[in-house]
């Protein structure tokens, strides 16, 4: 399957290393080990196999959890070799380093040669090379060489690519190529992989991951610790103006949202409502909606009216805390139901008056006058309940992330080029033959998809041979 040029490039290092072997056998042997594709295959397989371990053994769990599963000796052994955090263990990192070293050395070994063959392509073919190329064709013509060379040159330009023309030993050689950048596809892919690693390292060294919980109406600039670093103080603060949860008709959460403001030097410089999958970014620091919770007890508002209907104010109640209504008694909110017996939101309160049995009853939000039925000196009405949420934000700074994306782009593009672009080459040699004829030899090679190139090659030959035959008749030599 390999084309001649592949075979050739594979052979060159062998002879080059023989030269080195005579002087520095050990270093050479190490070098040959480091540049070999065999090592690459084994590294790739080794990485795959070891990666499986970390998916079978749950990672980064608390020790108690492992002790429930494993015997003491097994736990100690596994802990010793970092199996519980294996992707950050020294041996896994060592594997990655060796992999990268292999990739780098392989590139150092091969890339210069590829560049050389691309910049100084083989412009001529000789008999030895013809044998290694499977696509060859020969024919003879009357006429003189320069004239035919010119005819083929323009024909090749039209149907394939403009050829380079060289003269050597009385022969004229044409060389045309297409898709030469296909040769660099694999190197772009490999460079992409290394760039991804570099991006990951930058992120680990110069970035951080953290989180912060901010109650509604509060702001924060101090982040909690996570992974290594103690804590982080931001050069600005973030205020949680409001947090809310939207639900689907069936009650399942649909979206969590926080209305956030960035405050810098006492001024609001940015305001955005974030959702899961829609973070806020300021100065390279990203804030992600990640969780929420109750920041404190909810506050309930209850209206108080005299029996005459005259307003006597609004009370804010914290759960189970008694508040006094002067000249009446105390009231406390003890229970809340979002939908009480189909009547909507309801609040259960206890009213205590001196020397009386406490009264416990429900207030319905939708029926503000329902308390009149008690026939007491004061009536109460449930106005609203305000739950007090905090928003849980994941905070991340990763200056390496764009480097990672760049690497990803490069490696994907390189792959496509390497797979789908073929380096196609056509040589034509015109030599003086017996009886004053011109001997023409054409050869072709492609590093990809050779059956397709074979068709193209013969189609091109048919085309360029047809045109000249016409000119030949018009122009008898």
């Amino acid at each position, binding site marked *: 399957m390999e084309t001649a040029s592949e075979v050739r490039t594979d052979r060159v290092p062998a002879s080059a290393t023989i030269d080195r072997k005579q002087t520095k056998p050990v270093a050479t042997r190490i070098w040959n080990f480091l540049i070999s594709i065999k090592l690459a295959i084994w590294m790739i*397989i080794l990485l795959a196999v070891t*990666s499986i371990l970390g998916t079978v053994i749950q990672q980064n769990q608390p020790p108690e959890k492992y002790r429930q599963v494993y015997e003491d000796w097994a736990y100690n052994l596994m802990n010793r070799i970092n199996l519980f955090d294996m992707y950050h263990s020294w041996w896994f990192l060592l594997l990655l380093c060796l992999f990268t070293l292999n990739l780098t050395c392989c590139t150092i070994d091969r890339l210069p040669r590829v560049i050389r063959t691309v910049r100084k392509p083989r412009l001529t073919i000789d008999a030895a090379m013809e044998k290694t190329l499977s696509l060859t064709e020969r024919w003879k013509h009357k006429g003189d060489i320069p004239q035919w060379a010119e005819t083929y040159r323009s024909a090749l330009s039209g149907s394939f690519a403009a050829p380079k023309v060289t003269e050597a030993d009385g022969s004229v050689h044409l060389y045309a190529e297409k898709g030469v950048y296909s040769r660099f596809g694999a190197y772009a892919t490999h460079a992409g992989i290394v760039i991804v690693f570099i991006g990951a390292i930058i992120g680990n060294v110069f970035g951080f991951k953290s989180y912060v919980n901010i109650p509604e109406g509060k702001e924060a600039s101090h982040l909690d610790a996570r992974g290594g670093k103690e804590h982080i103080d931001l050069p600005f603060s973030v205020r949680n103006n409001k947090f809310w949860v939207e639900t689907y008709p069936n009650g399942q959460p649909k*979206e969590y949202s926080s209305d956030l403001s960035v405050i810098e030097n006492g001024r609001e410089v940015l305001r955005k409502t974030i*959702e*899961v*999958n829609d973070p806020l970014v300021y100065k390279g620091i*990203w804030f992600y909606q990640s969780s929420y919770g109750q920041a404190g007890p909810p506050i309930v508002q209850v209206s108080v009216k005299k029996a005459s209907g005259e307003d006597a104010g609004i009370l804010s109640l914290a759960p189970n805390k008694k508040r006094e209504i002067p000249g009446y008694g105390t009231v406390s909110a003890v229970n809340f139901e979002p939908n009480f017996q189909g009547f909507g939101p309801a609040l259960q309160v206890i009213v205590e008056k001196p020397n009386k049995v406490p009264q416990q009853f429900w207030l319905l939000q939708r029926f503000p006058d329902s308390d009149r039925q008690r026939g007491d000196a004061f009536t109460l009405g449930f106005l609203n309940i305000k739950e007090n949420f905090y928003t849980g934000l994941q905070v991340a700074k990763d200056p390496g992330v764009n480097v990672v994306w760049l690497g990803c782009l490069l490696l994907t593009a390189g*792959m496509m080029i390497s797979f789908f672009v073929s380096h196609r080459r056509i040589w034509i040699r015109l030599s003086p033959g017996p009886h004053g004829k011109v001997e023409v030899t054409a050869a072709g090679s492609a590093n990809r998809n050779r059956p397709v190139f074979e068709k193209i090659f013969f189609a091109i030959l048919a085309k360029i041979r047809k045109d000249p035959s016409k000119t030949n008749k018009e122009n008898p030599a």
Partner: protein
Amino acid sequence: MNTLNVHLFDLTTLLFGTASVNYVAYLYGKRETLARIGTWICLAAAVVSTVALGVRWAESYQMGIGRIPVTNLYESLVFFAWSVNLFYLLVEWKYKNRTFGAFVIPIAFATMLFALTSESGIHPLVPALQSYWLHAHVITCFVGYAAFTVSAGVAVMYLMKAKREEAKVTGGIVGLFPVSKVLDDLVYRSIIWGFPFLTAGIITGAAWANYAWGTYWSWDPKETWSLIVWLVYAAFLHARITRGWHGRRAAILSIAGFAATIFCYLGVNLILSGLHSYGS
């Protein structure tokens, strides 16, 4: 309410079953007509399942939870079968040979049977899944999976064919297969289609994770397994560069890659735990 799409998927299952029978019967009965009918049935299945996906998508909008139908086990299974079928039809058309059908379409059929046993309701998406990255991620991954499926099916054919060729036996069901060189090439060709798609799938997944919670890679089991699959196929590609890894060994690597793919796709969810557990 959302039963029309499920009925259509049931019909798709039936079509894949019939097509599988046709393709296998073609190998034994050697009647081209059987396989030709198989092709038409597969085309019909492609149409029906595409319509079913569209209907399901529309139904989710009617329910007020509009979303792409690739977000739970049932949907991913039918989408997988859909991709395999389309990729297969493309290969059949390109290679003008219908013997592949017996090795690929039964996989689509089995996938649909498995889908029958899973819960088929349309459920709302949790907030984490509501992202445009989801579309790109799922579609690229599944095209990759489909390509690897075809590759593995052809790899099995290669192994059968190569054995017979070595023994210089002609005829038999293997007689209808393309020559082993063509099969070997197709094993490879499918992979060079699948590999960039899997790569794009992993990258879009990482981009999504980065957008949803600020970490593009967290070594959760699904991510790690997608990397393992990626590495197996990378090993395949490099093994091909060094001589001596064509043919049998390449075919075996392709089958191993497919096994890893299936584990990544289903095994991780059903056996291991992590972020991607469907439905939970």
